[in-house]
Protein backbone atom coordinates (compact mmCIF):
# COMPACT_ATOMS: atom_id res chain seq x y z
CA UNK A 1 0.00 0.00 0.00
CA UNK A 2 1.14 3.53 -0.85
CA UNK A 3 -0.21 6.66 0.77
CA UNK A 4 -0.45 10.04 -0.92
CA UNK A 5 -1.85 13.29 0.41
CA UNK A 6 -3.08 16.37 -1.42
CA UNK A 7 -2.22 19.49 0.56
CA UNK A 8 -4.21 21.72 -1.75
CA UNK A 9 -7.38 19.90 -0.68
CA UNK A 10 -6.53 19.44 3.03
CA UNK A 11 -8.58 21.65 5.34
CA UNK A 12 -6.68 20.80 8.51
CA UNK A 13 -9.43 18.88 10.25
CA UNK A 14 -6.76 16.62 11.75
CA UNK A 15 -9.15 13.68 11.72
CA UNK A 16 -6.46 11.65 9.95
CA UNK A 17 -4.03 12.21 12.82
CA UNK A 18 -6.57 11.17 15.36
CA UNK A 19 -6.93 7.85 13.53
CA UNK A 20 -3.31 7.22 12.54
CA UNK A 21 -0.89 9.45 14.47
CA UNK A 22 2.13 7.42 13.37
CA UNK A 23 1.34 7.81 9.69
CA UNK A 24 0.03 11.38 9.39
CA UNK A 25 0.95 14.69 10.91
CA UNK A 26 0.26 18.36 10.29
CA UNK A 27 3.11 20.52 8.99
CA UNK A 28 4.25 23.02 11.57
CA UNK A 29 3.98 26.09 9.29
CA UNK A 30 1.21 25.39 6.83
CA UNK A 31 -0.91 23.27 9.14
CA UNK A 32 -1.50 20.93 6.19
CA UNK A 33 -1.32 17.16 6.26
CA UNK A 34 1.92 15.27 5.62
CA UNK A 35 2.42 11.52 5.37
CA UNK A 36 5.18 10.44 7.74
CA UNK A 37 5.23 7.03 6.11
CA UNK A 38 4.65 6.48 2.41
CA UNK A 39 4.51 2.71 2.50
CA UNK A 40 2.87 1.77 5.79
CA UNK A 41 3.38 -1.51 7.50
CA UNK A 42 0.59 -4.11 7.03
CA UNK A 43 -0.03 -3.77 10.77
CA UNK A 44 -1.00 -0.14 10.11
CA UNK A 45 -3.39 -0.81 7.23
CA UNK A 46 -6.52 -0.67 9.36
CA UNK A 47 -5.74 2.69 10.88
CA UNK A 48 -4.62 4.08 7.53
CA UNK A 49 -7.96 3.03 6.03
CA UNK A 50 -9.73 4.65 8.96
CA UNK A 51 -7.71 7.83 8.50
CA UNK A 52 -8.47 8.08 4.79
CA UNK A 53 -12.17 7.50 5.45
CA UNK A 54 -12.18 10.03 8.29
CA UNK A 55 -10.92 12.86 6.10
CA UNK A 56 -14.03 14.88 5.23
CA UNK A 57 -12.45 16.31 2.09
CA UNK A 58 -10.78 13.09 0.89
CA UNK A 59 -7.29 14.56 0.86
CA UNK A 60 -5.76 11.13 1.44
CA UNK A 61 -5.49 8.58 -1.36
CA UNK A 62 -4.47 4.97 -0.88
CA UNK A 63 -2.95 2.98 -3.70
CA UNK A 64 -3.39 -0.69 -2.98
Amino acid sequence: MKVSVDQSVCREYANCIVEAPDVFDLEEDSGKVVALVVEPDPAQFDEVHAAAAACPVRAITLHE
Partner: protein
Amino acid sequence: MSTAAGAHVVVVGGGLVAATLTRELRRLGHTGPITIVSDEAEVPYDRPPLSKQVLAGTVTPEETRLLKPADLEDLDVTLRLEQPAAGLNPVAREVELADGGRLGYDVLVVATGSRARRLPTVPELSGVHHLRSLDDATAIAEALPGVRRLVVIGAGFIGLEVAAVARNRDIEVTVVETAARPLSRVLGEDAGEVVIELHEERGVEVRCSATVVEVRGADGVEGVLLDGGEFLPADLLLVGVGAVPNTEWLEGSGIEIDNGVVCDDRGRTSLPHVYAAGDVARWRNALTGAHARAEQWQSALEQASVVADAVTGGGRVWDTVPYFWSDQYDRKLQFCGAAGPVSERRDTARGPVVLFGDGDEQLVGVLTVGNPRALAQGRRLVAAGTAWPQAQEWLAGL
Protein backbone atom coordinates in the same frame (compact mmCIF):
# COMPACT_ATOMS: atom_id res chain seq x y z
CA MET B 1 -27.76 -11.80 10.67
CA SER B 2 -25.50 -11.95 7.66
CA THR B 3 -27.03 -11.45 4.29
CA ALA B 4 -26.44 -12.66 0.76
CA ALA B 5 -24.25 -10.41 -1.34
CA GLY B 6 -27.15 -9.88 -3.73
CA ALA B 7 -29.62 -8.58 -1.14
CA HIS B 8 -31.44 -5.30 -1.71
CA VAL B 9 -30.23 -2.77 0.86
CA VAL B 10 -32.53 0.22 1.38
CA VAL B 11 -31.24 3.23 3.28
CA VAL B 12 -33.83 5.71 4.48
CA GLY B 13 -32.24 9.15 4.89
CA GLY B 14 -29.71 10.61 2.49
CA GLY B 15 -26.93 12.05 4.66
CA LEU B 16 -23.48 11.04 5.85
CA VAL B 17 -24.57 7.57 6.90
CA ALA B 18 -26.15 6.83 3.52
CA ALA B 19 -23.07 7.96 1.58
CA THR B 20 -20.60 6.13 3.82
CA LEU B 21 -22.64 2.95 3.98
CA THR B 22 -22.87 2.82 0.19
CA ARG B 23 -19.11 3.19 -0.24
CA GLU B 24 -18.37 0.62 2.44
CA LEU B 25 -20.87 -1.94 1.15
CA ARG B 26 -19.30 -1.80 -2.30
CA ARG B 27 -15.78 -1.92 -0.87
CA LEU B 28 -16.75 -5.05 1.05
CA GLY B 29 -18.07 -6.71 -2.09
CA HIS B 30 -21.81 -6.25 -1.80
CA THR B 31 -23.23 -6.72 -5.30
CA GLY B 32 -26.96 -6.35 -4.71
CA PRO B 33 -28.97 -3.19 -5.36
CA ILE B 34 -28.63 -0.25 -2.98
CA THR B 35 -31.40 2.36 -2.80
CA ILE B 36 -31.20 5.62 -0.86
CA VAL B 37 -34.54 7.26 -0.03
CA SER B 38 -34.29 10.91 1.03
CA ASP B 39 -36.81 13.64 1.69
CA GLU B 40 -34.32 16.23 0.47
CA ALA B 41 -33.86 17.37 -3.13
CA GLU B 42 -30.05 17.22 -2.81
CA VAL B 43 -27.71 14.27 -3.20
CA PRO B 44 -26.13 13.42 0.19
CA TYR B 45 -23.94 16.30 1.38
CA ASP B 46 -21.72 17.00 4.34
CA ARG B 47 -23.11 19.10 7.20
CA PRO B 48 -20.06 20.34 9.17
CA PRO B 49 -19.08 22.94 6.53
CA LEU B 50 -22.61 24.41 6.66
CA SER B 51 -22.02 26.31 9.90
CA LYS B 52 -18.43 27.15 9.00
CA GLN B 53 -16.99 27.45 5.48
CA VAL B 54 -20.33 27.66 3.63
CA LEU B 55 -21.36 30.63 5.79
CA ALA B 56 -17.93 32.19 5.40
CA GLY B 57 -18.18 31.72 1.64
CA THR B 58 -15.03 29.61 1.31
CA VAL B 59 -16.79 26.38 0.36
CA THR B 60 -19.54 26.22 -2.24
CA PRO B 61 -22.66 24.07 -1.81
CA GLU B 62 -21.43 21.79 -4.63
CA GLU B 63 -18.22 21.14 -2.71
CA THR B 64 -20.16 19.71 0.23
CA ARG B 65 -21.49 16.81 -1.88
CA LEU B 66 -20.53 13.43 -0.46
CA LEU B 67 -21.39 11.55 -3.62
CA LYS B 68 -20.28 13.18 -6.88
CA PRO B 69 -22.00 12.20 -10.13
CA ALA B 70 -19.13 9.79 -10.96
CA ASP B 71 -19.50 8.13 -7.53
CA LEU B 72 -23.19 7.52 -8.12
CA GLU B 73 -22.33 5.64 -11.27
CA ASP B 74 -19.32 3.76 -9.86
CA LEU B 75 -21.22 2.71 -6.75
CA ASP B 76 -24.31 1.78 -8.74
CA VAL B 77 -26.71 3.30 -6.23
CA THR B 78 -30.29 4.38 -6.86
CA LEU B 79 -31.21 7.73 -5.33
CA ARG B 80 -34.87 8.46 -4.68
CA LEU B 81 -34.89 12.13 -3.75
CA GLU B 82 -37.82 14.19 -2.42
CA GLN B 83 -39.40 10.95 -1.24
CA PRO B 84 -40.09 11.12 2.50
CA ALA B 85 -40.61 7.74 4.13
CA ALA B 86 -43.87 7.70 6.07
CA GLY B 87 -43.99 4.23 7.57
CA LEU B 88 -42.38 0.85 8.00
CA ASN B 89 -44.02 -2.56 7.70
CA PRO B 90 -41.49 -5.04 9.08
CA VAL B 91 -43.69 -8.07 8.32
CA ALA B 92 -44.02 -7.31 4.61
CA ARG B 93 -40.47 -5.85 4.73
CA GLU B 94 -41.63 -2.66 3.08
CA VAL B 95 -40.98 1.03 3.54
CA GLU B 96 -44.10 3.10 2.99
CA LEU B 97 -43.47 6.32 1.12
CA ALA B 98 -45.37 9.58 1.69
CA ASP B 99 -46.72 9.46 -1.87
CA GLY B 100 -48.37 6.12 -1.14
CA GLY B 101 -45.71 4.01 -2.85
CA ARG B 102 -44.03 1.01 -1.23
CA LEU B 103 -40.46 -0.10 -1.41
CA GLY B 104 -39.45 -3.65 -0.50
CA TYR B 105 -36.14 -4.42 1.22
CA ASP B 106 -34.02 -7.35 2.27
CA VAL B 107 -32.03 -5.16 4.64
CA LEU B 108 -33.16 -1.76 5.89
CA VAL B 109 -30.89 0.89 7.36
CA VAL B 110 -32.62 3.71 9.23
CA ALA B 111 -30.50 6.84 8.73
CA THR B 112 -32.97 9.73 8.98
CA GLY B 113 -30.71 11.85 11.20
CA SER B 114 -32.15 14.58 13.36
CA ARG B 115 -33.65 18.03 12.95
CA ALA B 116 -33.16 21.32 14.72
CA ARG B 117 -35.23 21.58 17.89
CA ARG B 118 -37.88 24.33 17.78
CA LEU B 119 -38.63 26.55 20.76
CA PRO B 120 -42.28 27.31 21.55
CA THR B 121 -41.31 30.91 22.44
CA VAL B 122 -39.86 31.56 18.98
CA PRO B 123 -42.33 32.45 16.20
CA GLU B 124 -41.60 31.91 12.50
CA LEU B 125 -40.62 35.48 11.64
CA SER B 126 -38.39 36.51 8.80
CA GLY B 127 -34.87 36.79 10.20
CA VAL B 128 -35.36 33.78 12.49
CA HIS B 129 -33.16 30.86 11.43
CA HIS B 130 -32.34 27.29 12.39
CA LEU B 131 -29.39 25.46 10.83
CA ARG B 132 -29.51 21.86 9.75
CA SER B 133 -29.72 21.69 5.97
CA LEU B 134 -27.94 23.19 2.99
CA ASP B 135 -31.02 25.35 2.35
CA ASP B 136 -30.80 26.71 5.90
CA ALA B 137 -27.12 27.53 5.42
CA THR B 138 -27.71 29.23 2.07
CA ALA B 139 -30.48 31.35 3.56
CA ILE B 140 -28.24 32.50 6.43
CA ALA B 141 -25.29 33.14 4.09
CA GLU B 142 -27.52 35.33 1.93
CA ALA B 143 -28.83 37.27 4.94
CA LEU B 144 -25.46 37.88 6.66
CA PRO B 145 -24.21 40.81 4.53
CA GLY B 146 -27.18 42.91 5.71
CA VAL B 147 -26.93 41.95 9.36
CA ARG B 148 -25.66 44.35 12.05
CA ARG B 149 -26.72 42.50 15.17
CA LEU B 150 -26.96 38.76 15.63
CA VAL B 151 -28.46 37.04 18.64
CA VAL B 152 -27.80 33.32 19.01
CA ILE B 153 -30.07 31.35 21.31
CA GLY B 154 -28.14 28.42 22.75
CA ALA B 155 -24.36 28.16 23.16
CA GLY B 156 -24.06 24.81 21.41
CA PHE B 157 -21.48 24.03 18.75
CA ILE B 158 -23.58 25.16 15.81
CA GLY B 159 -24.61 28.44 17.46
CA LEU B 160 -21.04 29.20 18.48
CA GLU B 161 -19.73 28.46 15.01
CA VAL B 162 -22.24 30.84 13.47
CA ALA B 163 -21.30 33.41 16.13
CA ALA B 164 -17.65 33.07 15.09
CA VAL B 165 -18.36 33.49 11.37
CA ALA B 166 -20.54 36.55 12.06
CA ARG B 167 -17.96 38.10 14.40
CA ASN B 168 -15.32 37.72 11.69
CA ARG B 169 -17.57 39.96 9.59
CA ASP B 170 -17.74 42.59 12.34
CA ILE B 171 -21.31 41.79 13.22
CA GLU B 172 -22.26 42.48 16.86
CA VAL B 173 -22.98 39.10 18.41
CA THR B 174 -24.68 38.10 21.65
CA VAL B 175 -25.07 34.46 22.64
CA VAL B 176 -27.83 33.70 25.15
CA GLU B 177 -27.52 30.46 27.09
CA THR B 178 -29.87 29.17 29.77
CA ALA B 179 -27.23 27.02 31.46
CA ALA B 180 -24.49 28.48 33.63
CA ARG B 181 -21.80 27.54 31.08
CA PRO B 182 -21.83 26.93 27.32
CA LEU B 183 -21.83 23.35 26.05
CA SER B 184 -22.27 22.09 29.58
CA ARG B 185 -24.37 19.16 28.40
CA VAL B 186 -21.44 17.85 26.38
CA LEU B 187 -18.39 19.26 28.11
CA GLY B 188 -19.33 19.90 31.69
CA GLU B 189 -19.04 23.29 33.36
CA ASP B 190 -15.26 23.72 33.52
CA ALA B 191 -14.58 23.23 29.85
CA GLY B 192 -17.33 25.74 29.11
CA GLU B 193 -15.00 28.37 30.52
CA VAL B 194 -12.47 27.67 27.76
CA VAL B 195 -15.16 28.22 25.18
CA ILE B 196 -16.39 31.47 26.74
CA GLU B 197 -12.84 32.86 26.71
CA LEU B 198 -12.42 31.97 23.05
CA HIS B 199 -15.47 34.06 22.17
CA GLU B 200 -15.11 36.91 24.63
CA GLU B 201 -11.54 37.53 23.45
CA ARG B 202 -13.02 38.30 20.05
CA GLY B 203 -15.76 40.54 21.31
CA VAL B 204 -18.74 38.19 21.40
CA GLU B 205 -20.98 38.75 24.37
CA VAL B 206 -21.89 35.49 26.08
CA ARG B 207 -24.87 35.70 28.43
CA CYS B 208 -25.14 32.56 30.53
CA SER B 209 -27.94 31.78 32.97
CA ALA B 210 -30.24 33.86 30.78
CA THR B 211 -33.36 32.80 28.90
CA VAL B 212 -35.17 34.38 25.98
CA VAL B 213 -38.80 34.74 27.04
CA GLU B 214 -40.11 36.61 24.00
CA VAL B 215 -39.11 37.30 20.43
CA ARG B 216 -40.29 40.70 19.16
CA GLY B 217 -40.93 41.80 15.62
CA ALA B 218 -43.74 42.44 13.17
CA ASP B 219 -42.54 41.81 9.61
CA GLY B 220 -39.13 40.67 10.66
CA VAL B 221 -37.35 39.96 13.90
CA GLU B 222 -36.48 43.09 15.93
CA GLY B 223 -35.00 41.59 19.05
CA VAL B 224 -35.44 39.34 22.05
CA LEU B 225 -36.56 39.91 25.62
CA LEU B 226 -34.58 38.15 28.35
CA ASP B 227 -36.03 36.80 31.58
CA GLY B 228 -34.25 39.60 33.48
CA GLY B 229 -36.30 42.16 31.53
CA GLU B 230 -33.50 43.28 29.20
CA PHE B 231 -34.20 43.75 25.48
CA LEU B 232 -31.49 42.77 22.97
CA PRO B 233 -32.04 44.20 19.48
CA ALA B 234 -31.30 41.81 16.61
CA ASP B 235 -31.83 41.69 12.88
CA LEU B 236 -30.94 38.00 12.72
CA LEU B 237 -31.82 35.41 15.30
CA LEU B 238 -30.24 31.97 15.18
CA VAL B 239 -31.81 29.26 17.29
CA GLY B 240 -29.34 26.50 18.10
CA VAL B 241 -30.82 24.52 20.94
CA GLY B 242 -30.05 20.96 19.96
CA ALA B 243 -31.58 18.38 17.69
CA VAL B 244 -34.32 15.77 17.92
CA PRO B 245 -34.08 12.41 16.13
CA ASN B 246 -36.34 11.88 13.09
CA THR B 247 -38.16 8.77 14.31
CA GLU B 248 -41.82 9.76 13.80
CA TRP B 249 -42.10 7.79 10.57
CA LEU B 250 -41.27 4.59 12.47
CA GLU B 251 -44.16 4.88 14.90
CA GLY B 252 -46.40 1.85 14.78
CA SER B 253 -43.69 -0.36 13.28
CA GLY B 254 -42.88 -1.89 16.65
CA ILE B 255 -39.24 -0.82 16.53
CA GLU B 256 -37.84 0.13 19.93
CA ILE B 257 -37.36 3.90 20.22
CA ASP B 258 -36.07 5.67 23.30
CA ASN B 259 -34.55 9.03 22.42
CA GLY B 260 -33.46 7.54 19.11
CA VAL B 261 -33.69 4.07 17.59
CA VAL B 262 -32.19 1.71 20.16
CA CYS B 263 -29.27 -0.29 18.75
CA ASP B 264 -26.65 -2.72 19.99
CA ASP B 265 -22.94 -2.25 19.29
CA ARG B 266 -23.36 -3.49 15.72
CA GLY B 267 -26.31 -1.29 14.80
CA ARG B 268 -28.97 -3.98 15.10
CA THR B 269 -32.39 -2.68 16.14
CA SER B 270 -35.18 -4.60 17.85
CA LEU B 271 -36.52 -5.65 14.41
CA PRO B 272 -34.91 -8.34 12.23
CA HIS B 273 -33.18 -7.11 9.06
CA VAL B 274 -33.39 -3.52 10.29
CA TYR B 275 -30.30 -1.52 11.32
CA ALA B 276 -29.96 2.12 12.30
CA ALA B 277 -26.95 4.45 12.41
CA GLY B 278 -25.98 8.09 12.84
CA ASP B 279 -27.86 10.89 14.56
CA VAL B 280 -31.18 9.01 14.59
CA ALA B 281 -29.74 6.03 16.47
CA ARG B 282 -28.77 5.32 20.04
CA TRP B 283 -25.95 2.79 19.91
CA ARG B 284 -24.16 0.94 22.63
CA ASN B 285 -20.44 1.64 22.58
CA ALA B 286 -18.61 -1.61 23.32
CA LEU B 287 -15.56 0.19 24.68
CA THR B 288 -17.19 2.65 27.08
CA GLY B 289 -20.44 0.77 27.70
CA ALA B 290 -22.27 4.07 27.15
CA HIS B 291 -25.60 3.96 25.35
CA ALA B 292 -26.06 7.37 23.79
CA ARG B 293 -27.06 9.21 20.66
CA ALA B 294 -23.72 10.37 19.33
CA GLU B 295 -24.70 13.29 17.05
CA GLN B 296 -21.13 13.45 15.78
CA TRP B 297 -19.70 13.15 12.31
CA GLN B 298 -17.04 10.59 13.17
CA SER B 299 -19.49 8.38 15.06
CA ALA B 300 -21.96 8.43 12.16
CA LEU B 301 -19.15 7.46 9.81
CA GLU B 302 -17.94 4.63 12.04
CA GLN B 303 -21.42 3.32 12.68
CA ALA B 304 -22.16 3.26 8.94
CA SER B 305 -18.99 1.26 8.40
CA VAL B 306 -19.85 -1.20 11.19
CA VAL B 307 -23.32 -1.71 9.68
CA ALA B 308 -21.80 -2.36 6.24
CA ASP B 309 -19.58 -4.95 7.87
CA ALA B 310 -22.54 -6.59 9.63
CA VAL B 311 -24.64 -6.64 6.45
CA THR B 312 -21.81 -8.35 4.56
CA GLY B 313 -21.38 -10.99 7.25
CA GLY B 314 -18.63 -9.50 9.42
CA GLY B 315 -18.50 -9.36 13.19
CA ARG B 316 -17.15 -5.88 13.96
CA VAL B 317 -18.50 -3.88 16.87
CA TRP B 318 -18.39 -0.11 17.55
CA ASP B 319 -15.66 0.28 20.12
CA THR B 320 -13.83 3.53 19.44
CA VAL B 321 -13.65 6.59 21.65
CA PRO B 322 -16.27 9.07 20.33
CA TYR B 323 -14.65 12.14 18.80
CA PHE B 324 -15.89 15.59 17.81
CA TRP B 325 -14.31 18.68 16.28
CA SER B 326 -15.52 22.20 15.81
CA ASP B 327 -13.97 25.22 14.06
CA GLN B 328 -14.33 28.53 15.82
CA TYR B 329 -12.41 31.49 14.40
CA ASP B 330 -8.97 30.18 13.48
CA ARG B 331 -9.01 27.62 16.28
CA LYS B 332 -9.89 23.97 16.14
CA LEU B 333 -11.73 22.75 19.18
CA GLN B 334 -11.61 18.97 19.58
CA PHE B 335 -13.16 16.69 22.11
CA CYS B 336 -13.04 12.95 22.62
CA GLY B 337 -14.57 10.56 25.12
CA ALA B 338 -16.90 11.92 27.75
CA ALA B 339 -16.92 14.70 30.29
CA GLY B 340 -16.43 13.36 33.81
CA PRO B 341 -16.91 14.67 37.33
CA VAL B 342 -13.18 15.42 37.68
CA SER B 343 -11.39 17.82 35.37
CA GLU B 344 -8.03 19.49 35.09
CA ARG B 345 -7.03 22.31 32.78
CA ARG B 346 -3.62 23.36 31.55
CA ASP B 347 -2.85 26.17 29.12
CA THR B 348 -0.16 24.85 26.79
CA ALA B 349 1.73 27.03 24.33
CA ARG B 350 -0.74 26.04 21.62
CA GLY B 351 -3.90 26.42 23.65
CA PRO B 352 -5.85 25.01 26.57
CA VAL B 353 -6.13 21.26 27.21
CA VAL B 354 -8.73 19.90 29.63
CA LEU B 355 -8.69 16.33 30.97
CA PHE B 356 -11.76 14.60 32.35
CA GLY B 357 -11.69 11.77 34.84
CA ASP B 358 -14.38 9.55 36.30
CA GLY B 359 -14.94 8.66 39.93
CA ASP B 360 -12.63 5.65 39.61
CA GLU B 361 -9.55 7.72 38.86
CA GLN B 362 -9.52 6.93 35.16
CA LEU B 363 -9.11 9.29 32.21
CA VAL B 364 -12.40 9.38 30.26
CA GLY B 365 -12.21 12.46 28.03
CA VAL B 366 -9.95 15.15 26.57
CA LEU B 367 -10.70 18.62 25.18
CA THR B 368 -8.10 20.55 23.21
CA VAL B 369 -8.08 23.93 21.52
CA GLY B 370 -5.68 24.36 18.60
CA ASN B 371 -3.74 21.20 19.40
CA PRO B 372 -4.73 18.25 17.20
CA ARG B 373 -1.68 16.24 18.14
CA ALA B 374 -2.51 16.37 21.83
CA LEU B 375 -6.05 15.32 21.03
CA ALA B 376 -4.79 12.33 19.04
CA GLN B 377 -2.55 11.25 21.91
CA GLY B 378 -5.31 11.88 24.41
CA ARG B 379 -7.74 9.75 22.46
CA ARG B 380 -5.31 6.85 22.63
CA LEU B 381 -4.88 7.33 26.36
CA VAL B 382 -8.66 7.30 26.85
CA ALA B 383 -8.96 4.12 24.77
CA ALA B 384 -6.23 2.47 26.86
CA GLY B 385 -8.07 3.26 30.09
CA THR B 386 -5.20 5.35 31.44
CA ALA B 387 -5.19 6.01 35.18
CA TRP B 388 -5.74 9.62 36.31
CA PRO B 389 -2.25 10.21 37.79
CA GLN B 390 -0.59 9.07 34.53
CA ALA B 391 -2.93 11.30 32.56
CA GLN B 392 -1.97 14.24 34.76
CA GLU B 393 1.70 13.50 34.11
CA TRP B 394 1.06 13.51 30.38
CA LEU B 395 -0.75 16.83 30.68
CA ALA B 396 2.11 18.38 32.65
CA GLY B 397 4.52 17.38 29.87
CA LEU B 398 2.53 18.95 27.02
